[in-house]
C-alpha cells in the first residue's frame, strides 16, 4: 500500500481547521515546572525535585500499566522501575526537544514490551532513544517540533471518538482487536477510525507553519 503524507491534499480535506490554529492556550505552568525538576535531578541529583516528579508521575505510570491489563503489584513495580530510569538517565533529558511528560512516556513505552511479554528474551527491545542528538532537520520537519501548546490545541480539535481510539491505542495491549471488542465495532472500523484520527492530528500539527 502506498502512503503519501502530502499536507496539501490532507489540508484541503480539513481546510476549515486553519482558523482555529491561531487560538493558542497558554502553556500550562506545570509543564515547564516538571522540565525544571528533571534538570535539577540531572544537575544536582536533587532528591526533593525527584520526590515531586515521583508524586506526580508514579501514580500515572501505575495507572498506565493497569490499563494494559497488568495487576496492581506489577504496575507498581513498573512505575518504580520507570522512575528509577528517570533518575538514572536525567542527563539525557533536553527540555528544548521534549517535555517532561513526553520523555517519561517514552521511558514507559520502552519498558512496557519487556513487562507485558513473558516470552521476551534478554535481547534489547527496539527502543526509542531518550537522547535526541539528531542532525539538523529540514524546515518542514522543524515545524512539527514538540510544542506543548500547539499539541494541546490540536488534541482539543479531535472528536471524542477520535480521542477515545487514540487513548485505547496508546494504553491497551493488543490494541486493535481489543479496541474492537471494547467498543463493539468491527476491526476494519477501528482501523479506519484510528487512521482518520491520525490524519487529522497530522494535518492540525503540520499545516501550522511553526510560527510562534
Amino acid at each position: 500500500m502506498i502512503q503519501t503524507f502530502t499536507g496539501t491534499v490532507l489540508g484541503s480535506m480539513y481546510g476549515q481547521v486553519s482558523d482555529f490554529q491561531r487560538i493558542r492556550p497558554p502553556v500550562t505552568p506545570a509543564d515547564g515546572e516538571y522540565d525544571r525538576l528533571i534538570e535539577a535531578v540531572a544537575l544536582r541529583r536533587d532528591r526533593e525535585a525527584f520526590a515531586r516528579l515521583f508524586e506526580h508521575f508514579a501514580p500515572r505510570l501505575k495507572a498506565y500499566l493497569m490499563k494494559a491489563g497488568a495487576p496492581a503489584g506489577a504496575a507498581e513495580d513498573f512505575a518504580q522501575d520507570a522512575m528509577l530510569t528517570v533518575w538514572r538517565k536525567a542527563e539525557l533529558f533536553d527540555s528544548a526537544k521534549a517535555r517532561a511528560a513526553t520523555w517519561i512516556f517514552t521511558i514507559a513505552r520502552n519498558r512496557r514490551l519487556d513487562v507485558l511479554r513473558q516470552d521476551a528474551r534478554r535481547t534489547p527491545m527496539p527502543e526509542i532513544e531518550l537522547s535526541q542528538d539528531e542532525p539538523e532537520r529540514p524546515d518542514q520537519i522543524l515545524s512539527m517540533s514538540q510544542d506543548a501548546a500547539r499539541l494541546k490545541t490540536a488534541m482539543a480539535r479531535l472528536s471524542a471518538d477520535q480521542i477515545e481510539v487514540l487513548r485505547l491505542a496508546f494504553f491497551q495491549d493488543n490494541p486493535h482487536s481489543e479496541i474492537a471488542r471494547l467498543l463493539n465495532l468491527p476491526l476494519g472500523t477501528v482501523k479506519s477510525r484510528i487512521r482518520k484520527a491520525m490524519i487529522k492530528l497530522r494535518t492540525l500539527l503540520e499545516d501550522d507553519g511553526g510560527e510562534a
Partner: protein
Amino acid sequence: MSARHNPSEERLLAYAAGTLSPPEAVVVAAHLAMRPENDAWVRQLQAVGGRLLDELEPAAMPDDALARVLARAEADAGQALASTPLNDMAGLPEPLRRYALGPWRWLGPGMRARDVHAPRDGDCRVILLEIGPGRETPKHTHGGVELTCVIHGAYATETERFDVGDFEEADTEVLHQPRVVSPDPCLCVVALDGQIQLDGWLGKLIQPFIKL
C-alpha cells in the same frame, strides 16, 4: 522518482505506543532510522502519549515506594550503564546494529539470508535477506504478515518499486514475487510471521529445502 512507501498510520501509532510485536518493531525502527520525517512524526506521537499519560486518573502508590526507589538509586551511584555492543555490519541502520547476527545461509543462486537475533514473538522473527541484481524470489504467499524495509538497492513487485528506506507490508492475500532492479545486490530487513508458501510445481518441489 516513485512514491515513497511508508508504514501505515496504524502501524506507526502502534510503534509509538510500544504495542507492536518486537520483530515488527525492529523493522519499523530500521525504517525510521532512514526516514527522518517519519521519525519526527513518531517523536510527535510520543508527545501525544505524554499528554494522555498526564491526563490519566492517578492510581495510588504504596507509601514506601519513593523511599525504595531512592534506595535503589543510591545503590547504583557511580555505576556506568552498560551499552550494547554493536555487530560488525557497519552498513546497517543503527537500530539493527545492536543485535547479534547469525551466519549467512545460502538460499539459492544469488540469494542468502542471516538471522537477526532480535526478540521473537511466537513464529515471528527477523532476518536480513540479500538478493543479487536481476534475481527474483520464488513466487510466494505468506502464512502471516511480512514487513520489509530496504537497506540497500531496490526491488520491484508486479506493480510497485521499493527503494532504500521504503517499507512494505504484505499479508496472506498477497502473491509475491519481488525482483531486484538495482545494479547492486538488494539488502532488506524482514519480519516474517508464519511460513512462506512457495507457489507453483517448482516451488512445491523446492519448498522443503528453503528454510527462512
